[in-house]
């Protein structure tokens, strides 16, 4: 997977840089595939969550890194997906597939209807508008308990089954969810190196110049926002199918903040960065909790240090290192 670097490669560039890269990819795939066989079930479970959060997080990261939009509303779309799967498979008795797509459709529609007016705002106004959205979403999840189960939540959600093969262990889910995550990354990588991707980066650097070149800035922002909502919903649906239980506690402001952390800690400029960001927010609290009650304090400290010392996020840091190795110099377009 060389998706993180793709933005600077012209389309026509030679596919395999050299054999080493193919070898590295092969090793990577081998390691990836063997993790569930070697690691403990608890660890694999954390890696499943890493994948889930990186799917939802990449939507936030892309908005932030390519459009300059801070979104704190991802928890709403994540929730919509989760409740669509919960309600669809329990109350309506649907298969998981239509439930999942229904969630994505609802999330996309909501994002469109809300994004259209609020995406005319910018900077902190927009950040606050999305925060307001997250608050509204959380209240509605609580209030509409005939769908969401309110505080009690919804249990007994159908697990994902593929051709009769039920994904009822973290190991099984691991392969599935990472393949889905890979597809999402692939889509975003496509977008980044396409006409729309150039338009976005232009819009981020100099919006008025982008408009002069014919970019419909508002429309483009709405498209990316809807896209982000759809992948957020996808992640939420997968989450619901995996845990088989959802409650409103999973879709609060803190979850929205943690998705933003995925983007910032991972590095909003790179697509694969969100994997590192997701790994950070999943693994760090888990590892640190061994320290006892002080763990929350240490986590906050680590977070602060990460933001200060890795302003481009972990993804940006690694990308610069890799570029340095490949080009012999670290200086290149961001």
């Amino acid at each position: 997977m060389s998706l993180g670097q793709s933005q600077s490669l012209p389309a026509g560039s030679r596919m395999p840089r050299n054999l080493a890269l193919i070898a590295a990819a092969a090793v990577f795939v081998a390691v990836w595939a063997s993790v569930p066989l070697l690691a403990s079930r608890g660890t694999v479970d954390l890696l499943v969550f890493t994948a889930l959060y990186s799917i939802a997080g990449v939507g936030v990261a892309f908005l932030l890194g390519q459009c300059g939009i801070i979104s704190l509303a991802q928890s709403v779309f994540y929730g919509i997906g989760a409740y669509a799967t919960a309600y669809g498979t329990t109350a309506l008795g649907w298969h998981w597939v239509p439930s999942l797509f229904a969630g994505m459709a609802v999330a996309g529609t909501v994002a469109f209807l809300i994004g259209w007016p609020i995406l005319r705002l910018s900077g902190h106004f927009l950040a606050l508008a999305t925060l307001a959205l997250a608050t509204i979403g959380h209240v509605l999840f609580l209030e509409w308990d005939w769908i969401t189960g309110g505080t009690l939540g919804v249990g007994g959600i159908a697990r994902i089954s593929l051709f009769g093969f039920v994904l009822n262990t973290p190991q099984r889910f691991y392969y599935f969810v990472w393949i889905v995550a890979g597809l999402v990354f692939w889509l975003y990588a496509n977008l980044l190196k396409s006409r729309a991707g150039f338009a976005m980066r232009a819009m981020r650097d100099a919006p008025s110049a982008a408009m002069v070149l014919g970019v419909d800035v508002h429309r483009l922002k709405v498209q990316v926002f809807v896209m982000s909502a759809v992948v957020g919903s996808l992640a939420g649906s997968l989450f619901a199918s995996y845990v088989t239980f959802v409650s409103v506690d999973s879709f609060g402001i803190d979850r929205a903040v943690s998705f933003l952390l995925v983007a910032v800690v991972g590095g909003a400029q790179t697509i694969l960065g969100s994997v590192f960001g997701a790994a950070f927010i999943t693994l760090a609290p888990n590892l640190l909790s061994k320290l006892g009650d002080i763990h929350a304090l240490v986590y906050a400290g680590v977070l602060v240090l990460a933001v200060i010392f890795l302003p481009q996020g972990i993804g940006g840091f690694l990308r610069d290192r890799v570029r340095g190795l490949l080009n012999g110099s670290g200086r290149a377009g961001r």
Partner: protein
Amino acid sequence: MIRTKISRRTVLMGTAGVTALGALHAPAIAQQGGEPIKIGAVLCLTGPGAGLGQAERSAMQLAEKMVNEAGGVNGRPIRVLIEDDGSKPDIAKSKAEALIFNEKVPLMIGSSLTASTGAIAALTNGEKMAQVALTGLGPAIELTYKSLYHVLPPQPLNARAMLEYTKAQNFKKIGVLHDSGYGQLVYNSLREQAAAYGVSFAAVEKFEVGAQDVSTQAAKVRAAQPEAVYVIATSPVPFRGARQVRITQPIISAIGSSPYDYVRGMGEYADDIVFPEFLVGEDPEPHQKAFVDMYKAAYNSLPKNYEAAGWDALQIAVNALKKAGPTDREAIAQAMREPYRGVMASYNFAAPDLTGIELSSFVFSKLVKTQFTRLPFKVTARS
């Protein structure tokens, strides 16, 4: 009148437990040998549920020490692995995965909040292993989980306890001030059962969990001129708010609002508030006294319901391990399905609500000038 059926054996076990309590100051004579038996616990030690989880943890740690000093389980010591879920269900699920499959614990205790409990239950149910939840019954689906047991009453029972007291006081017109989490759950049950007790709600106002000012809602309740007010929340804020807008009527609350944390936060407004609960540390019932004394000796503070629940949960786990051995998960779960008289209440996990707590287990306390007193009122079980 239905007497709770308590088997002779359980009484014996209970006595053994109390004897174990007495061993606190005795020289440790645990002739322990062999590998410790691990018990998994996921609690809300941080986040909104921390008030519950930390109380439960302190009692569980005390119980662990007591059990080990009294010789452990069939000669083997126990070790309680307590993990913090940060009050988040997804973290609870991950922690439970690690405990169940990495540590291979034979049973689970926790969590402190309904959502976390539900997330763990999806796992324990699949493994057919016992989970002693420190919550009341969650979503309806849990009724189909046959190894998920609750040591706290389900909300309909809490509601009935409140209504019983209300009826005894002859209040008919009630105002309700509740939060959107715990308070909403209790209120939902109140609403369903109020009519049966001849109680009607004149005003029902809600506020979000974590709200810091509820005076407008309280004013609305006051404007309805009720005879008494139900305040149900996991925070002292609404109690202060109610009194600050001059709601002078008696306040009747629920068990979830009773921890000392909240009462301290109420300051001098902690007055004329009634709680249907299970343990009044200042004036315990006879079977609770040993636990209260021991807890006081260990922590220099009084225990309350959640401490008692944590204690009972671990004692139930230990009893089952003694009976069914440390490995067979299904047998352990089965062994728990017998009536048990704990410090907090008498349980019967074979009951349809997976709790078996009766109204008669409730005690009623009243805050008078920041001090708890136990009321003579008791619900005598009716037919």
